[in-house]
């Protein structure tokens, strides 16, 4: 009951409002074109008929929710998952490079953080570059990376994963620097009284203390990784993936398909973030975390 009141009702209310607003907005945006069509055909539709027409154009400016849902359902469940028309297939293509990029990004981020925490010189020399790297618009750099790699014959997963890595290492590096430095002075003193070596302090104190920071930053990183993979699919007319689907949709003004691909993309993001969250909660429980 509590769950119903605290979570389900507020979420569904908001969703309902959103859908109603979306339909209204679809009328506003698709209306002018519909009026134009009607005038040319010499028709004078009633209000209701007009509304229905704005919600059922083949290439609307803003597709209505049910149009997107229909397309999403059709391209997800009614076609073979390995066919080029399936959103499952395209999601999988994007997901695989997101995943590879995320793993490398997280590993790179952790590595950088360990270096920064242990060597003061790295802290001073590396950190400004890391921050600078994130000020470069990814939309500008992604096509260049993809094109350069394509020129030397490397295409497919690798260049895309590289863009994901580029976006996802940053939050992990920043989060882990904070996490590895999170042990209190008292705990460090305690380790000192045992005459612990640096590796012992690292493994027995710094690493466990940094775990909550790791999962928090990985949630951000996995979402960034997905954005990287999609952006990397946009240039050079990638043939598969959610990004490619978005691009071809915009070429042929297939707005409904674009929106369906967007929905697929956000679903993938939700699943990824949730997976990291679940992994985080399992780890926390295993480390004696107080149940929330």
């Amino acid at each position, binding site marked *: 009951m509590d769950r119903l009141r605290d979570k389900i009702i507020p979420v569904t209310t908001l969703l309902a409002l959103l859908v109603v607003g979306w339909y209204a907005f679809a009328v506003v945006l698709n209306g002018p074109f519909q009026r134009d069509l009607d005038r040319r055909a010499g028709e004078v539709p009633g209000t209701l008929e007009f509304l229905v027409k704005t919600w059922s154009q083949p290439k609307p400016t803003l597709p209505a929710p049910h149009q997107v849902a229909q397309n999403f359902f059709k391209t997800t469940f009614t076609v073979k998952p390995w066919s080029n028309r399936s959103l499952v297939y395209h999601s999988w293509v994007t997901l695989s490079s997101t995943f590879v990029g995320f793993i490398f990004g997280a590993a790179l981020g952790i590595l950088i953080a360990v270096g920064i925490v242990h060597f003061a010189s790295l802290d001073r020399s590396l950190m400004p570059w890391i921050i600078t790297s994130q000020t470069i618009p990814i939309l500008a750099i992604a096509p260049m990376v993809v094109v350069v790699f394509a020129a030397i014959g490397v295409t497919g997963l690798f260049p895309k994963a590289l863009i994901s890595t580029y976006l996802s290492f940053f939050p992990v590096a920043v989060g882990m620097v904070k996490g590895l430095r999170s042990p209190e002075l*008292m705990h460090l003193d305690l380790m000192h009284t045992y005459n612990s070596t640096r590796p012992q302090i690292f493994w027995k104190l710094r690493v466990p203390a940094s775990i909550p920071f790791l999962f928090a930053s990985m949630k951000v990183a996995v979402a960034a990784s997905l954005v990287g993979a999609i952006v990397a699919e946009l240039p050079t007319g990638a043939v598969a993936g959610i990004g490619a689907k978005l691009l071809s949709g915009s070429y042929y003004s297939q707005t409904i398909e674009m929106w369906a691909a967007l929905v697929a993309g956000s679903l993938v993001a939700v699943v990824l973030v949730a997976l990291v969250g679940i992994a985080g909660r399992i780890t926390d429980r295993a480390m004696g975390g107080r149940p929330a």
Partner: protein
Amino acid sequence: MIPEPKQAASMAEIKNAVIEAEKLGLTFHTNDGPVQALANVNLSIGKGEFVSFIGPSGCGKTTLLRVIADLEKPTSGKILVNGMSAEQARARRAYGYVFQAAALLPWRTIASNVALPLEIMGVSRAEQAARIKRTLDLVNLSGFEKKYPWQLSGGMQQRASIARALAFDADLLLMDEPFGALDEIVRDHLNEQLLELWGRTEKTICFVTHSIPEAVYLSTRIVVMSPRPGRVTDIIESTLPKERPLDIRETPEFLAIAARVRDGLRAGHSYED
């Protein structure tokens, strides 16, 4: 135990001193200029003693403990622990340190927290288990091995941290206001237990506190300190017997010692005015 006259306590006469400080001084360099945390501290602590350091905040009692533990380096004078430099003593794990807070690692169970120093010192698994059992028995925490720190009360957490300090059998126990954050009832109880533990293990204990009754109740010797600069103003030998029930605190003997400590603290303060 027959208390020795005060003069006997003066330095060199204690044979096989566990801690020897000579003209010890420590100056911190802060942004507001140098702060003299310790000045000309001379002290000798023998094996098996229970010595309390008492004084107002800023008198350097914690700093002195940290110097003994080699967590802080003195800027002048000499400090010997077990006849060697504080650094060598720390390298040989000569002491167990109990902090103001329990400082247990939240991701480790009580047993595994007690095992932490043992793991670091490379004690075998079987030996670890035996020592965990023994030390948790010693602080009356048997049965809580698998609990996490947050599942224990503050007093129990501090007992676990004492168990951790005892686990590797150092002969010296350094305690920095270990019961300062606990309520009076728990504190009385832990004081009693600590005395009992001290009687059983014959360890040397250095105990920092700002409570006069606590210092008098626990100690064989009370070092009174005063601030600016941090220095020792008086060293008081306790005439209380080793066997000390809680109600000893109402005896005239106890009150007399407490009065002397209070006078010592007041005398130290008068420098400020």
